[in-house]
């Protein structure tokens, strides 16, 4: 196997320590995700979905097991190398947006490019492009505080997109969006996926999960099922959007 996978975990465990108590959040997860795949991760609350995503996103290190990203073992990398991986390879979209409130939407989106050293003009262009793509053309200079939850989440997604990552990891990306906005996000994901970007998203919504081509289910820190979505059952966000009333390109807030 190995190099054929974009993301690959083998017997990965994660144990949180709360004082003397050990909380096992992952109890040995083995999973391989190929380049260009679109995978949904489901499971009840507390089953370890976010923990797994954090490890995949190099935001945390596993307690045991091996994680290979693009064939390279992450456990052996320095903090500096991990920062560079987070910056270039992975776009992480959080459940709670995680925008910097003191920066404008545009500046938030520029942030990963700033740390990469992209020249200002190029940075601005790419950040604007990403925001326009998410329908936030009129909100470039707004502070996150002045945006709705849905808009903030879209800024966060734009931030991930602007960095042109190989992998997008999204922890409940549509949880805070209404159905139309959520569908737009899924359309973006499917579009990116069609361009070859690997997408992994956590969701509680089976209909959201059906936009991917594979559904992995977790329960109590273990994988309990790993199924392909039948091509005839897979949903196309573009088609669904076309059917929704009042379709308008790049839909601004209603």
């Amino acid at each position, binding site marked *: 196997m190995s190099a054929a996978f974009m993301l690959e975990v083998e017997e990965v465990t994660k144990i949180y320590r709360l004082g003397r108590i050990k909380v096992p959040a992952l109890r040995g997860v083995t999973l391989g995700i190929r380049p260009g795949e679109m995978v949904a991760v489901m499971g009840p609350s507390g089953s370890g979905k976010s923990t797994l995503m954090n490890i995949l996103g190099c935001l945390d290190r596993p307690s045991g097991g091996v994680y290979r990203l693009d064939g390279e073992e992450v456990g052996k990398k320095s903090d500096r190398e991990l920062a560079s991986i987070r910056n270039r390879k992975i776009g992480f979209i959080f459940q709670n947006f995680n925008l910097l409130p003191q920066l404008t939407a545009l500046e938030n989106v520029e942030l990963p490019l700033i*740390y990469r050293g992209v020249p200002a003009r190029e940075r601005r262009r790419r950040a604007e492009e990403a925001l326009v793509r998410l329908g936030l053309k009129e909100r470039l200079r707004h502070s996150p505080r002045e945006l709705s939850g849905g808009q903030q989440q879209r800024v966060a997604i734009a931030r991930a997109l602007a960095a042109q990552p190989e992998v997008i990891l999204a922890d409940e990306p549509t949880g805070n969006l209404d159905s139309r906005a959520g569908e737009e996000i899924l359309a973006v994901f499917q579009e990116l996926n069609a361009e070859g970007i690997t997408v992994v998203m956590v969701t509680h919504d089976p209909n959201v999960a059906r936009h991917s081509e594979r559904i992995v289910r977790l329960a109590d820190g273990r994988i309990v099922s790993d199924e392909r979505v039948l091509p005839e059952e897979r949903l196309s966000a573009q088609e669904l959007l076309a059917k929704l009333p009042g379709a308008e390109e790049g839909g601004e807030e209603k």
Partner: protein
Amino acid sequence: MTFLLSLKLAWRGILANKLRSFLAMLGVIIGVASVIALVSVGQGARLSIQRHLESLGSNVIEVHSQGWDVRFTPELIEDLKTRVAGVKYVMPVIGLGGNLKWRNNFIDTPAQGVTQDFLEIREFKLAGGRNLSEVDVRERRRVLVIGAAVAEQLFRGVNPVGEEVYFNNQRFTVVGVLAAKMPDQEYGIDRTIYLPYTTAQRLMGGAGRIDTINIKAAGAKEASQAALQLRRIFFKMYRRPDAAYVMSRDDMLKQVAEMNRTMTLMLAAIAGISLLVGGIGIMNIMLVSVTERTREIGIRKAVGAQNIQILSQFLIEAAIISGAGGIIGILVGSGASLLIRRFGPPTALSLFSILVAFGFALLVGAASGVWPAAKAAALEPTDALR
């Protein structure tokens, strides 16, 4: 990442937390300002005493009578010229003061009854006219040599030499004008008039007692030896140590410098403590802010910031706060020093204290900003984001 960007991020960080930044800055401002103001007071005191002593001329010894029975007679003065080794001039001095009037202008001015030697002893130069002469002294002539400031204030552009003036209602002729020695001092030696001591004696009637002798020695070594010898002479004459106060200008200068070093050090210590307290203030606020901003650090790390990039942002933030605080502190401290000079004792700003205070503020600011930031930057992103 370029420095400019760190700067911009840091600036935004400061603006996003205006009150916090201001409070941190306040500590620095107070610390730096108090160091500068207090040290300037100490320096000012030292300089003004030093200047006064220097105005006496180098290698000069002053002898003051300290009792009604201690009389300095012209005979004694002649005697000292030969008895004391290494002495170039011995001159009686009578201090008086009064009103000087020319046409409709008048000023109050201190005056000294001296001999023609005063020019050499005090190291004056003539700007115009002539010095007092032996004949002036012998014949008790009513002639004056006036200080530069007197000339300027009383005569307002007219050449005073040859002019008739009234000193305490007695008619005098101005024969000489001195060149300015200390132009920046309002009541310095340039604001004094000199007349023959014999004339002063007559002017004052019975009160015209010689209470001071000025002695100029050939060199510094001779001066301190002469001072010793003079003390011995007066002790023998009066059988008590305090009959005459013998003060060598150079010894005095040393003493004053010593005294003032202690005073300046003490003021600097007080000010240093306030700077330290200010520093602890920044440290405290920086610690709180980094703790508060752990989430921000987590977000930055999540999008790929390296520890060093986060650190440099916080370092620059701290440097801007303490640097700006330092600059404002310098301005406030200098302003305070000028105000004190205006309404109180003289002050003198010291570049050294400004640099030390500013450098210390920067250092404390940077250290206190970076240490907690380094701690936060070392967290795993998930831990910082929680």
